């Protein structure tokens, strides 16, 4: 078990490093001299040269990467061009809101997906199976930025139950665990939850139907186990796969939330990315992408480590 965790940790290191490489390269994808984004257009030649050496841009690219990585590891992601503030603090204040939104959306999606999928798998071919299958197709096909708009029309304009904009009363971006703030979370979280719901419904349905057809289930039933006891066996066998799929989905939600955050003016990383892109604020873009992807890598690692705890067979491999 320990060896397994160690192996996973070691495997995550090159992936994390390559994520930093890609984030670093983003600056060079941007058209033009990266200095143009920092220095004013009419800056004299000496200032440009001074800035170039101050930012280390006169060094070879691999050296630049090394220097950048050293600073990034220490939590220094440079200064935002748009606001002049530190990218690290900007990202950290926004990433909490994104994680909250993605986490709650994933929770709704996973719970609803498991229930729907299990019902559909148990009643294979029934009307409930057809409803669940249709819902899962809709879930993976719907553009969630549009769903957000439709939910706003229904539940914020037609029936004003939930607010449509922001993360708290009075445009506050500080999250608090109270009912008033929670009302702001409902629409964006439900909007974002349809994708994992669709995928997990599909996965669980297939797994459960497959499991119920296996001989060990017949054997359990023949021994006179109650339906609930049999279900416990089925659930235990489906859990590792569901966990793997769910973990991946939470990660995708952190990226996918950029669209939903735009629709609901949610003050998260999507908002930051928007600012970064349209103000050509490359350090901010780079920092936000890097932090989000590190969360994604960490999440995948966590899933890898949790899996053998549920299914000990995996740890021995």
């Amino acid at each position, binding site marked *: 078990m320990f060896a397994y965790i160690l192996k996973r940790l070691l495997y995550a290191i090159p*992936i*994390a490093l*390559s*994520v930093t*490489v*890609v*984030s670093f390269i*983003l*600056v060079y*994808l*941007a*058209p033009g001299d990266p200095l143009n984004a920092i220095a004013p257009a009419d800056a004299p030649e000496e200032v440009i040269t001074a800035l170039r050496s101050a930012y280390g841009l006169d060094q070879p690219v691999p050296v630049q990467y090394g220097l950048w990585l050293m600073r990034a590891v220490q939590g220094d992601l440079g200064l935002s061009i748009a606001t002049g503030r530190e990218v690290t603090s900007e990202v950290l204040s926004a990433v909490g809101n994104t994680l909250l939104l993605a986490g709650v959306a994933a929770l709704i999606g996973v719970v609803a997906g498991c229930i729907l999928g299990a019902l559909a798998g148990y009643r294979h071919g029934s009307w409930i199976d057809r409803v669940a299958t249709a819902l899962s*197709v*809709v879930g*993976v*096909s*719907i*553009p969630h*930025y*549009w769903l957000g*708009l*439709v939910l*706003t*029309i229904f539940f914020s*304009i*037609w029936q004003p139950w939930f607010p449509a904009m922001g993360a708290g009363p009075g445009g506050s971006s500080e999250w608090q665990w109270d009912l008033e703030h929670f009302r702001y979370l409902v629409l964006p979280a439900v909007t974002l939850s349809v994708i994992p719901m669709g995928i997990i419904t599909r996965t669980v349905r297939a797994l459960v139907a497959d499991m119920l057809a296996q001989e060990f289930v017949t054997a359990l039933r023949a021994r006179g186990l109650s339906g609930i006891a049999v279900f416990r066996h089925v659930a235990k066998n489906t859990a590792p796969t569901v966990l793997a799929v769910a973990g991946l989905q939470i*990660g*995708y*939600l*952190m*990226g*996918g939330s*950029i*669209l939903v955050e*735009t*629709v609901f003016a949610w003050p998260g990383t999507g908002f930051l*990315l*928007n600012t*970064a*892109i*349209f103000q*050509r604020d*490359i350090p901010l*873009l780079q920092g936000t*992408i890097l932090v*989000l*992807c590190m969360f*994604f*890598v960490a999440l*995948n690692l966590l899933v890898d480590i949790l899996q053998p705890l549920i299914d000990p067979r995996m740890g021995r491999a």
Partner: protein
Amino acid sequence: MSATLPLSPAAPMPAASAPSRSYWAVVWRQLRRDPMALAAASVLLIIVAAAVFAPWLAPADPYKASMIKRLLPIGSEGFLLGTDELGRDLLSRLMYGGRLSLLMGVVPVLAAFGIGTAIGLFAGYVGGKLNMVIMRVLDVFYAFPSVLLAVAISGALGPGMSNSLIALTLVFVPQVVRVAESVTTQVRQLDYIEAARMSGASAFSIIRVHVLGNVLGPVFVYATGLLSVSMILASGLSFLGLGVKPPEPEWGLMLNTLRSAIYSNPWVAALPGLLIFVTSIAFNLLADSVRSAMDIRR
């Protein structure tokens, strides 16, 4: 999705450049009998036809604005689906919009299909260390959630239609490579490839005659599944302002600019998104049918 090879050791493949005609005939017959596939295909056909023939079918000029006719509701006289925030006929804009939206959804998948198959065939056929290096490099892309990767690349390149096409293609290529590579690696070890090599066939002709036919099926199925994702992502990039620029009509962009109208005229505002949804679900259902129709050989 794991690419399953439509092969069984007991019944060797007819080693032709393409699977025998009867195979495609069977797939085609299967699809024609599938009501879901027929429904999805007809919906797509209508949408594509409306987009392609927009210059002849559209009732009005999609760029002609009118300040006094802004945000007319659905069913207004002369404006069947109402008007947008600048008083342009929405039906015409939706028809013209289909051209760019479909183009931006389909082109990245086609490009990734071509590029990804080529890389996958090469990596799988060469095998060994080079294959491992190529696949490990592509693994890096899996460390990024796909929406984030698309937004990051097109954000860094700058807003614009060609940049978002490049970004989406880059998102899909590694996925296609993975499918193509895994099938190629499986096929490469089969006896008849060995036989072809011993009879002196060049690597290129072995790939073209013996490997490609096996790889195209699974990759094709995978690519059809990507179409729906690509439609949503492409329109999403335009929705964020990263893709098509105004005043060009495009569904994602229209959805964004009409957002200000959801309080005064919600149904008009929701229409472009409905089209993205219908197209994406039709692609998804068609992909499901194609997948099950092509699996019959298994």
